[in-house]
């Protein structure tokens, strides 16, 4: 069943395409939990650093 998985991957990619809607605005300060492999405890701790945030799932 290769076709459905290819289609699914394409759909995910299409949905995640850049829309730039938020560019130029202040980044949210949403509270995250369980910071691991970093000494940061909150998004605010990255002050002064450029930050790449990547959202991922396992499926």
């Amino acid at each position, binding site marked *: 069943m290769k076709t459905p998985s290819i289609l699914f991957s394409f759909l995910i990619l299409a949905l*995640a395409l850049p829309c730039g*809607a*938020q560019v*130029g605005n202040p980044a949210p300060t949403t509270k995250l939990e369980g910071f691991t492999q970093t000494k*940061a405890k909150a998004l605010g701790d990255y002050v002064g650093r450029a*930050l790449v945030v990547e959202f991922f*799932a396992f499926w």
Partner: protein
Amino acid sequence: MKHLNELEAKYADKGLSILAVTSEGAAKTEPWIAKHKATYGYAYDRSGSLMRELGGTGYPSAALITPDGMIAWTGHPSGLNDVLIEKALEGALKKPVWDWPSQAKPVVSALAKKKYAKAISTARKLALKSQDEELDAIGNAIEAMVKSKVLAARKKFNEGDFLGAKTMTKALQKQLKGLPEVDEIKAIAAEIKANPEASKIIKAQKTLKKVRSEIPDAKRRKHVDVLIKKAKSAVKKLSDTFANISAEKLLQTLRARRAKLK
């Protein structure tokens, strides 16, 4: 996400931090991190609200945040390139604040509030009192950050990005209060005001920004067509301007979206 390990290895010393965020639980995440030998930081957002607030609508997606907490880019991770990252690294602190000495806490607090004069003077005072060279280095790093902000505002003005320059100078006049660099910021603001083309270009840029913000809501071709019309109309008499270049990029995005819709 091997690319994140690579990004961290390449740019961490230059001021880049990496944070992977998942809405999954630790039971699934930790084995995955171990299996993929991920070395970067990660955190949990079970509600997925950060991704939504950053405009992400699917996995994977990513965002690039500047050292002063502004969103520089959002999109699919494959679109994140060295040019974007290196631009965002301008003025970034090479050492994260969590590695600063504990007595620098008031400096961090001033920095978080974007009170740069206070941050620098506090670092200097603490350095003098404790004779700690690291605190002096922190003061220098914040000064470099300030200088880079001024250069960035000047660059925007020189490129004809009047909206970007205006937005920056407005914010920086407050943030740099008490520092000599504020004079250069005021000079840029005055030049924008004196430029006869600037107000027309700013108006067009605002329209383009609005169109850009409406893209996620355009679910059908006819909606995208309306946005294309608005974008074209905004820059109708503004050929060879920054607004026109922005409009061309926006139109490419709109056409690509249109091709995927019914």
